[in-house]
């Protein structure tokens, strides 16, 4: 600071001296703008949907009573059927993930500009993946069921398509990150494309591949249930029948709980595998201290790697492959051949969808606004709820272990139940329309937010909390002064991401009886007015695409 600025100002002091800001202007403007957008969107969608949160809260005791009377006690009296349905659903998840992962790997090789052997084709691949990804899975399912009829192979195709779209993007990003430089290097050496793939991309990419594969298994188990509800078979189809008939509802509850146990078991298994396979300290038991001056010769040939290195990883890859292949066996009523023979019929359906018919535009637009309403309101209310709940589940803030354990287990249970099932359960007490949609979506995204918010709060190091406490801060101050600011940008990112998910989720709710654009798509497809469905799908795609691009830009610009 120069001497001039220290001199007393000649101008009279303003009546309200400007306050010294402790945050940067850019950050403050971003959060202000975000708040304005959120409040505005909430007001607008509340007006459109006429959703009254107080009424919904007031109706809760009644609804819980309703569910208690209807769904309890949970019953399982069809163990044989249930078991085979569960096996079919797991098999569907495994097979579709495997095939999608293999296809996505091949597509990503071409789609990743840094490694592509045909660079001009990479935008084509990425565009295709973006299109597939931004049309909700269930819309693909409905299209495929229309074109190819019902059956396991169709559910398989729908799930594979959805996972493929997701994985292509994930794989391209990973490849860009881990193998762009080494691939260039091998090109300089004179290696050709297959050699570059096997010697640079595959070894660098294995860990990311496993991480994404495990994630997709988790998602696909839930997805397979929902696709089953629409006609893919398995536990979803069973559940759909049970939820539809009042006297079977205790059985539906039994099925839901068993399904929840299965999903939790799969999540535990995948997180165990993650820890075992992806944690570097666990796999690199052989460190740089271990030295060998001797050349290892095996069978008269010089060995180029140590035996037993990466054994766990290889074991996992081989067993995953075998298990996924074996999973084709329990799927009995599938006609795999028709996946190929039905391609002409499918192309015809796609052409019909592409022949856009705007005659029902006003109805589509109204339904689309309802869907937006469900997405916006459920995201906002669940974020607010989670903000209130999460501190009580944060272990380094709350000293007693009971409330974190209780909140975490309820949240986990809710997360395991597929969203459409929650919505179907809310339809009986709240009636058809947007209200059960908003309530079901709010429940599942609250469970999601509680988990990620708690993770963010618990990431604040104990030392920081101690330092604050040493200055005399109480828990409230620690929370407001350290935990909230530390995780604020991540929370905005999570809320944005969940809004994308909720929008896609809302778009399909109509297919299980709630309002919104999904109902229009389903009706139009069943009535063979594919041009109308095409318009609705295009609208959903365009919005989802704009959202994806916008969120990516916001993340790049504002969120560190």
């Amino acid at each position, binding site marked *: 600071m120069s001497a001039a600025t220290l001199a007393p100002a000649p101008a009279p002091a303003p009546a309200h001296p400007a306050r010294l800001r402790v945050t940067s202007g850019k950050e403050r403007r971003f959060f202000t703008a975000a708040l304005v957008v959120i409040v505005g969107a909430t007001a607008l969608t509340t007006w459109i949907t006429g959703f009254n949160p107080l009424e919904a809260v007031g109706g809760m005791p009644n609804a819980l009573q309703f569910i208690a009377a209807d769904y309890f006690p949970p019953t399982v009296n069809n163990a044989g059927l249930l078991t085979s349905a569960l096996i079919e659903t797991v098999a569907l998840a495994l097979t579709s993930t495997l095939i999608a992962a293999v296809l996505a790997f091949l597509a990503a090789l071409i789609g990743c500009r840094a490694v592509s052997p045909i660079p001009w084709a990479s935008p084509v691949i990425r565009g295709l993946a973006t299109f597939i990804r931004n049309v909700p899975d269930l819309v693909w399912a409905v299209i495929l069921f229309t074109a190819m009829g019902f059956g396991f192979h169709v559910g398989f195709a729908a799930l594979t398509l959805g996972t493929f779209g997701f994985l292509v993007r994930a794989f391209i990003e990973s490849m860009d990150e881990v193998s762009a430089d080494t691939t260039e290097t091998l090109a300089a050496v004179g290696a050709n494309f297959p050699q570059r793939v096997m010697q640079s991309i595959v070894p660098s990419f294995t860990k990311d591949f496993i991480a994404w594969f495990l994630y997709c298994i988790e998602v696909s188990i839930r997805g397979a249930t929902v696709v089953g509800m629409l006609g893919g078979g398995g536990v979803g189809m069973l559940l759909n029948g049970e939820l539809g008939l009042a006297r079977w509802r205790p059985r539906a509850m039994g099925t839901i709980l068993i399904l929840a146990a299965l999903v939790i078991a799969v999540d535990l298994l995948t997180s165990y595998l993650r820890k075992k396979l992806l944690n570097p300290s666990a796999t690199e038991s052989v460190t*740089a201290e271990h030295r060998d001056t001797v050349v290892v010769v095996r069978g008269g040939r010089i060995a180029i790697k140590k035996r037993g290195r990466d054994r766990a990883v290889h074991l996992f890859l081989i067993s995953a492959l075998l298990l996924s292949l074996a999973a084709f066996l329990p799927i009995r009523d599938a006609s795999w051949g028709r996946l190929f023979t039905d391609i002409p019929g499918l192309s015809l359906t796609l052409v019909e969808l592409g022949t856009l018919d705007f005659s029902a535009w006003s109805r589509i637009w109204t339904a689309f606004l309802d869907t937006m309403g469900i997405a916006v309101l459920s995201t906002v209310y669940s974020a607010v709820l989670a903000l209130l709940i999460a501190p009580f589940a944060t272990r380094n803030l709350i000293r007693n272990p009971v409330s974190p354990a209780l909140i975490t287990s309820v949240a986990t249970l809710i997360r395991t139940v597929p969203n459409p099932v929650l919505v179907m359960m809310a339809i009986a007490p709240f009636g058809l329309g947007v209200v059960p949609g908003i309530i079901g979506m709010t429940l599942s995204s609250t469970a999601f937010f509680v988990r990620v918010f708690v993770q963010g709060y618990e990431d604040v190091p104990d030392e920081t909390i101690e330092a604050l406490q040493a200055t005399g801060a109480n828990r409230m101050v620690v929370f407001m002064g350290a935990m909230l600011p530390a995780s604020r940008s991540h929370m905005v990112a999570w809320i944005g991401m969940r809004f994308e998910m909720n929008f896609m989720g809302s778009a399909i709710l109509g297919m299980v009886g709630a309002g919104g654009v999904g109902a229009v798509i389903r009706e139009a497809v069943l009535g063979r007015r594919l041009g109308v469905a095409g318009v609705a799908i295009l609208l959903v795609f365009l919005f989802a695409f704009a959202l994806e691009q916008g969120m990516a830009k916001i993340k790049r610009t504002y969120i560190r």
Partner: protein
Amino acid sequence: MADTLQRPTETPAADPAGADTVLSVQRISKTYPNGTKALRDVSFDVRRGEFIAVIGPSGSGKSTLMRSLNRLVDVTSGTVLVDGEDLTKAGGARLRAVRRRVGMVFQHANLVGRLTVLQNVLHGRLGHIGTFAGMFGRYTEADKQTAVELLGEIELGEHMYNRAAELSGGQKQRVGIARAIIQDPSVLLCDEPIASLDPSVSKVIMDMIFQMATSRNITAIVNLHQIDVALRYATRIIGMHKGQIVFDGPPAELTKETIELIYDTPIEELMIGEELQR
């Protein structure tokens, strides 16, 4: 290893111009899609055994020049002849054949971290062996023997079976050099080989590049940020400014005025050794 605090002895008297040319760069230009003109009408010939340092400020086109010499970057116009063969027109198998005569050392070594040090050195042979052998790492015993010997030469024999990711920055760069040398190249390109290493490791790496190249009669072209390093090792210096060659000659002819021209900055503003400000 030779004591290189003094300038290493010069290579034997140069052949008459054009007699033993390994690399001929003829009027190449490169304009990137975003409009950046990275190279403007660059020409020079390189004879066998030369040790060339390319100096110039960031963005002067040094890296693009390197990458045009093995066609990691496609030039917009002009030709590059490697051992008399036109690199700019080669495609497929012929491009691979030309590329394996040009070794390259990168700033960050670019090793495949999950593979062993030995596997990374053997990557240099990929251009010489069949597609399937290369895909599944079936190298010949002779290649493996050479790789083991090279690892001894760079003093990393004991790390042969370690993952490349476990090595330090300087060790990685040594492996990067071995990978380029096992290619048996006529020309060795080094793109800022010491830019991210500390001074003592930098000396080891530069000594190693110099020793490997001169003992095998390989021509080396090295991009450098440090003028003093360039003066210590090079038999010829090329100075670049805004995509053009503004100086091309022996180190003795590199004057204060030339350095100011290359860096577009008064010499007092440059962080270089006092002895250079003559």
